[in-house]
């Protein structure tokens, strides 16, 4: 199974050691920055920046690039829609009902680099941060809103969901093999047939997931779980000097980029 998101990979790097709160904050700030920039030249610089950041994480670059590649269908649909239905700017090319405008091309390029950058950053975040640390950071960042939303419960739900991704992948694999042994084939044959075979895999998946959720709930209650709010943590996040430095660098980069965008 090749799913990079939600998959922590241990390497010795500065990025790995950063406090997850810092990483998450910088990630959000950068995401906002990415959507503020409208100049394609700056995106060139940003992409170079992301690639050098990959070097800093000491993770194999192809892992992160391939996560962006997995967007190809989404991007293709988006490109088709924007190219043919965006009708502003100068008409470049016309063929029957199909009209391509220069603004359309600009939009396509903008959306593509934005999406690719966000996905690469998100992949890097999850590859360098343990899922549980990430939810803990999310909980900490959202804690000012404790009165309004059940932050602790949401954090727990998210961490359970993340925890069960590999389990579910495992189970899906087993179900697919069990049905393949009975002649199910979702790769070949007429489309109706393939959908039917897919159903034969989806139903056991749901059944097993619900059963697992029920068992987990019972197991948690049996160990005295009442609510997430009043629970304390076994491990606490600690703040080092490098975290302050990292935070300052991360936010400075974002501000500089925004300022360049302003000037240009």
């Amino acid at each position, binding site marked *: *199974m*090749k799913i*990079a998101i939600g*998959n922590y*990979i241990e390497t010795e790097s500065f990025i790995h050691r950063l406090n997850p709160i810092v990483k998450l904050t910088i990630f959000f700030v950068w995401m906002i920055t990415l959507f503020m920039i409208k100049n394609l030249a700056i995106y060139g610089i940003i992409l170079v920046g992301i690639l050098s950041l990959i070097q800093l994480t000491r993770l*194999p670059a192809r*892992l992160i690039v*391939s996560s962006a590649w997995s967007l190809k269908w989404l991007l293709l649909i988006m490109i088709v829609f924007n190219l043919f239905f965006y009708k502003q700017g100068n008409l470049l090319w016309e063929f029957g009902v199909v009209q391509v405008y220069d603004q359309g091309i600009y939009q396509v390029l903008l959306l593509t680099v934005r999406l690719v950058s966000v996905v690469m950053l998100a992949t890097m975040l999850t590859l360098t941060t343990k899922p549980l640390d990430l939810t803990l950071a999310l909980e900490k960042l959202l804690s000012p809103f404790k009165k309004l939303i059940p932050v602790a419960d949401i954090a727990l739900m998210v961490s359970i969901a993340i925890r069960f991704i590999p389990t579910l992948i495992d*189970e899906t694999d*087993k*179900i697919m*093999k*069990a*049905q*393949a*042994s*009975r*002649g*199910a*084939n979702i790769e070949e044959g007429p489309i109706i047939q393939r959908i039917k*075979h897919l*159903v*034969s*895999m989806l*139903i*056991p998946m749901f*059944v*097993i997931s619900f*059963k697992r959720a029920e068992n987990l709930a019972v197991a948690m209650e049996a160990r005295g779980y009442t609510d997430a709010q009043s629970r304390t943590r076994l491990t606490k996040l600690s703040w080092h000097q490098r975290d302050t430095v990292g935070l300052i660098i991360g936010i400075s980069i974002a501000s500089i980029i925004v300022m360049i965008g302003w000037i240009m």
Partner: protein
Amino acid sequence: MQQITLKGVSHTYSDGYHETPALESVDLTVMAGERLAIVGHTGSGKSTLVQHLNALLQPHSGTVEAFGLTITQDAKKNRKLGLTKLRQKVGLVFQYPEYQLFAETVLEDIMYGPLNFGASREDAETKAYEMMEVVGLPKTLADRYPLALSGGQMRRVAVAGILAMNPDVLVLDEPTVGLDPCGQKEMMQLFMELHETLNKTLIIVTHDMDVVANYAQRLIVMQSKKKVFDGQPHQFFQKRELVDACKMELPHTVELVQSLRQQGIELDEGILTFEEVIAALIEEEDAV
């Protein structure tokens, strides 16, 4: 007659970052109509091995020859072979019936396999009723929702679903786990009947050494990705060091025979079942 031949089969799992070898250069020949048991500690590669038998997994090196097909490491070529044909010939019964039961009724679920392999609805239905009888499910259950049945009954539905495809080889993954002792015996008795009356090849993956002692003619032992033993079960049980090295236990009968021998009662070391132990003890007493 040779039915399935594995030559130097290796397999490595990969998640794009880590590579975990699971099988290293395994040779195995399955003869038509034999009763073969495959045992091994968790992670020894036995599951990976059996998934090669019906091409759920394909070798990363080496070849699998079965029913006129030669499966190699070339995935494109393999696809052209039509691997589903092989899955009809080699029926694999997984450990947990929950992984395969999905239809609204027991009957529909059993019909799923035969329909996939091109049977007509009438034929599939006849076959399904027939197999329900074979596995000992009363006809009244045909319209029930399969997941509402008891664990033992679900297991039977799953087995019937595979049998309905009429495979020549039956691969059973841990057929007795999760069943009560009575259910275990019934289940194994059922497979023995199928083996004897329909001459199906049985391949049993298990870690229950009593199942091996009672039902296997030939034993394959897997240990850290390799085949370390291939022969008659009693030969393996006499190799104490190998048994320990593979972290296996002896069947209760073999332990009994060995302690009786230590007490000075002369029993044949090849004894494997309780019936044989009793018979041997009576003979011994008569001789005295």
